[in-house]
């Protein structure tokens, strides 16, 4: 037996040697198995060559045996590219309210997406009175309040400042809120987790502009206000503003989309989405929080004792599995790659574990580079499904050692129907046919 054959056999044995119950394999099993898969590919190529030689002998035109698209001219250029016309499932989902058609939310279809970046046109939306149509050359950012010099900035002037680019998630504090329902909702990843998106944001550090205005020592907070029909406003502690807050002008390389705050939005890495004020037009430095509607009546977390948590800004460590998931069913027994997303407002993801036996045994998933702070991290794990019914769950840990609680541990912290900042472990159950259902464990 030559060494390659020995290695193939060893790899095959490893591929079938689970590291946790119900077929969860080592996170590098597919990588180690590379030679085995190449072997299958070589056999297929040989068969293809034989068929091609047989066809060539008959003297027919190439177009008779190749693809339709190989025998015609292709389509023209387009000024702005669109997804393939067959990708009709990769769209945002929302409900239409007749009176206020732009108010509410739309959700990112994570169940049909891959990688770590959300396409700009699929970034979730949470609008409080629709999407304003702002003329960029008329737009000004005003910084005033407890500052030495109240200043205005135009888009042109901000475009001449040093720029930074960061891949960061934005997540609505109400994302995952459906998990407080008494019975598990039979709904897809988009419906359950779709108020989370991830982009590369480019813009100017807020601290630079605040320094230019000269913040008074009594200025401990800012009030950030949007130029939309809700004049949406939130208070942000000055410490965050002087740290990593960015006035974002670009998203994934192009100017921010209208529904994401064109021409500029506040980006507060790791903080709840609502604070990342879109259509930003005014920053007032204040001595205290302003206690706006959205930081008192909304985005506060009622506890069982009737008191509510306030200013709990950071989004907690969280994860979900996209493949398989509700309506992303298994196609019979065999090898699969479990895939999903993990993120934390506290920093980088340190570890994602997956269990196929409701948390009794765990396998560590591979984290896909780059693993960045306050960014979505893709995780993957090879898996051999035997065809038996089972339940898949994921559990993320961040670099600050925050771990996702169980759903019941999380529920105990809050009053009934409290849905903000849910980060409990979630579960998908496969039946014997590979159909996936949402279950509580």
């Amino acid at each position, binding site marked *: 037996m030559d060494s390659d054959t020995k290695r193939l056999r060893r790899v095959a044995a490893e591929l079938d040697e689970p590291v946790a119950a119900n077929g969860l394999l080592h996170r590098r099993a597919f990588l180690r198995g590379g030679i085995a898969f190449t072997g299958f590919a070589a056999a297929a190529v040989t068969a293809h060559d034989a068929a091609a030689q047989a066809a060539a002998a008959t003297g027919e035109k190439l177009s008779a045996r190749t693809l339709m698209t190989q025998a015609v001219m292709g389509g023209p250029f387009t000024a702005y590219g669109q997804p393939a016309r067959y990708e009709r499932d990769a769209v945002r989902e929302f409900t239409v309210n007749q009176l206020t058609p732009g108010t509410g939310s739309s959700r990112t279809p994570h169940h049909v997406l891959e990688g770590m970046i959300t396409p700009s046109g699929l970034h979730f939306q949470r609008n409080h009175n629709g999407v304003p149509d702002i003329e960029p050359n008329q737009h000004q950012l005003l910084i005033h309040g407890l500052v030495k010099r109240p200043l*205005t*900035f135009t888009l042109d002037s901000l475009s001449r400042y040093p720029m930074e680019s960061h891949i960061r998630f934005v997540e609505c504090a109400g994302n995952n809120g459906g998990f407080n329902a008494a019975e598990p909702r039979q709904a897809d990843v988009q419906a359950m987790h779709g108020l989370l998106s991830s982009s590369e944001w480019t813009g100017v550090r807020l601290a630079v502009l605040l320094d230019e205005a000269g913040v008074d020592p009594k200025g401990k907070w800012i009030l950030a206000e949007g130029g939309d029909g809700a*004049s949406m406003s939130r208070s942000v502690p000055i410490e965050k503003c002087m740290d990593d807050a960015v006035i974002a002008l670009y998203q994934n390389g192009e100017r921010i989309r209208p529904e994401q705050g064109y021409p500029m939005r506040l980006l507060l890495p790791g903080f709840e989405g609502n604070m990342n004020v879109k259509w930003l037009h005014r920053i007032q430095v204040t001595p205290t929080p302003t206690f706006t509607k959205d930081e008192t009546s909304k985005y506060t977390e009622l506890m069982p004792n*009737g008191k509510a948590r306030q200013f709990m800004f950071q989004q907690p460590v969280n994860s979900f599995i996209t493949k398989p998931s509700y309506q992303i069913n298994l196609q019979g027994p065999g090898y699969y790659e479990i895939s999903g997303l993990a993120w934390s407002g506290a920093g980088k993801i340190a570890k994602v574990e997956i269990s196929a036996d409701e948390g009794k045994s765990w396998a560590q998933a591979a984290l896909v580079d780059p693993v960045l702070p306050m960014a979505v991290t893709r995780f993957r794990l090879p898996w051999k499904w035997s065809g038996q019914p089972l339940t898949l769950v994921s559990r993320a840990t961040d670099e600050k050692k925050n771990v996702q609680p169980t759903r019941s541990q999380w529920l105990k912290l809050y009053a*009934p129907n409290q849905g903000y900042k849910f980060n409990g472990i979630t579960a998908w159950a496969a039946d014997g046919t590979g159909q996936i259902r949402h279950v509580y464990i």
Partner: protein
Amino acid sequence: MSISKTAAALAAALVLGFGGAALAADKVPAGPGLGKEAPADLVAKWSISILPDGTGLPAGKGDSRAGATIYVRTCLGCHGTNGSGGTGGRLTGGIGSLTSDNPIKTVNSYWPYATTIFDYIRRAMPITAPQSLTDDEVYALVAYILSVDGIVKITDPLDKDTLPKIQMPNRNGFVSFWPAAPKGF
């Protein structure tokens, strides 16, 4: 600022910017200083936020009786009779429910400051025509909503002096988690 300081800051931003850890607050890079002095009248026109101590409240006044008329005309369609809720949020009732199995969060049961009601109505309501109400009308609407639960009397006019003094039922119902969770959490 000197050119060399700007260049050094730019270099620092380039090194640490992409994917790097946040810069410490004492290493804020310098900018080119292109902000324009904001005209005082622009600052005055755009300053619409109201702080809990009443800072920012305008002149004017209104009482619950005036507010009831405005409410029927501009609010009832979404927020229901007497603020009982509809396609828009419930505004009234629910006081004392926050520790129950069915907490009802309304303006009157949950909001800690009456100044927030003024701030929010004036900037954002009614949703089909935001910022279309006069300051007198906003004072009157705040008075009306509060009077439904007896927080103010029907005859009490609200203005910039009386509004911040209102003690909302849930004034002490919030626990700040900034800059850190309190002990025990």
